[in-house]
């Protein structure tokens, strides 16, 4: 999905299949909006999830996450393509 106008609110997207369940993003999030999900992903890890709101776009989770593609953070006002 792409949007014509900038994002009104920051948000985080976690690709569950790339998440290794290390929880480092959850620990680092100052807004406490990430959590460990109950289900297992294809690799057998409990992937991190976003509660759906409250992300400030600080990027802490992105820079704590060891997986290159697991986390994408969109800051407020972002315009452009978004990852699936």
């Amino acid at each position, binding site marked *: 999905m792409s949007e014509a106008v900038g994002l009104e609110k920051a948000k985080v997207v976690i690709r569950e299949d790339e998440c290794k369940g290390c*929880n*480092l993003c959850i620990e680092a999030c100052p807004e406490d909006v990430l959590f460990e999900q109950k289900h297992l992903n294809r690799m057998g890890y409990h992937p991190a999830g976003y509660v759906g709101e409250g992300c400030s776009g600080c990027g802490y989770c992105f820079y704590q996450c*060891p997986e*290159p593609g697991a986390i994408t*953070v969109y*800051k407020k006002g972002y315009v*452009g393509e978004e990852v699936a």
Partner: protein
Amino acid sequence: MAEKVLTKAASFYDVYERKSGAHDVTHYCPGCGHGVLHKLIAEAIDDFGIRDQTIFISPVGCSVFAYYYFRVGNIQVAHGRAPAVATGIKRTHPESIVISYQGDGDLAAIGGNNILQAANRGEKITVFFINNAIYGMTGGQMAPTTLIGQRTTTTPRGRTVANEGFPLKMCELISTLESPIYVERVALTDPKNTSKVRRAVRKALRNQIENKGFSFVEVLSACPSGWKMTSVQAKQWMVDNLLPQFPLAVFKDVSKEIEPSERSKVVFSTENVNELLNIPSEENIRTDIPKPLTEHQNPRIILAGFGGQGILMLGLGLAQAGMQAGYHVSWIPSYGPEMRGGTANCHVILSEERIGSPTVSRPTVLVAMNLPSLEKFESQVEPGGLIIYDTSLINQSPKRKDVNVLGIPATEMADNLGNTRIANMIVLGAYIAYTGIMPKDVVVDALPIFIKHKKLIPLNVQAIEKGMAFVDKNNGHA
């Protein structure tokens, strides 16, 4: 990178095709610091627009497969040797951005000398040193950086000073050298420290982009698997244990004061190498030399005697002349423990085919210039081969009956010419005359290349002629 989004850097491959298993995730364990440092490096490569110039050298260790991920030039090298390979690449491709990426086993143990020498030479490379205080890949053995008291598979009761010494502090060591321009230790712990890692990565790369000098960034990094804890515990363990022993600091930074400068580019062209090694150019290589008899073709030669008899020089002369005569040649001195006893030997091969190994274990020709050499090598000569020995110094003849033997009083003949040291050239003359492997003029043409004192050349020519005449008189052409 587009603004207002933090996502997978373009300097990573979209799909990790070289990797087996899942092509969209790395091979690293959950919570491993390698992945984070990879992200920071890839982001910087994107932001500086240096993807096409960057050559990433991966080590042996968990990051051995970094080339699965980085969409740049990649080379994976032998354990600990990344700084040496980086040196070669940077000097031959000064316009490239060369990253040496190494773990603490790789850099501080097996490659300890490599990194110190590269740092001391001030190679214009960027080194990222992942210190996780353990050998990760091989299952958690002690590294030089392992903490006192830390349990590993090889220090099951904990590292002790008495047994294993203190943790090696590479930043502290390297910052004592004069050449490095930037040395910093950072840590992948909390977001604050991680942003310092990000800054250090960028600074170390910028120094290279600006052609400044050797930059070294040590990154303390979690290895939850090796430390046998969860990723979250591992972060806390770093804060509680690693940071106190490995203080975070800029140990050296003169990058502001340093003027950019270029090293002269090393060009490995065939012409340059030929010139350095005195390899004759194609047109000077003789093609008109008749083959010797089958038994003398493609000789594998051991030449042996006292140090001071000019054995190595004799071998060199033979190889040099052989090259001019159109052979593939090799010459390799053998420095065994026997060097201490004052003996010297070398191996020479002249071959119509390319030479695989330069060492000779079954010689077809033995030149023995003293008794210990004859005794040592006689049994190794191939049946049907040739033994040439100096009868002035060896008062017993070879025992072998299945080889040809040529005894020549080379040292006495040399003494008659006024210089016993010329015995080696007398033997050379005898060898070419006996075997017909090449004519005199080829050897004489080669003399100026391996004899440094030009005024000695006439004496050498005379010696070669004496050796040839001896054979002609006593043996006739074989």
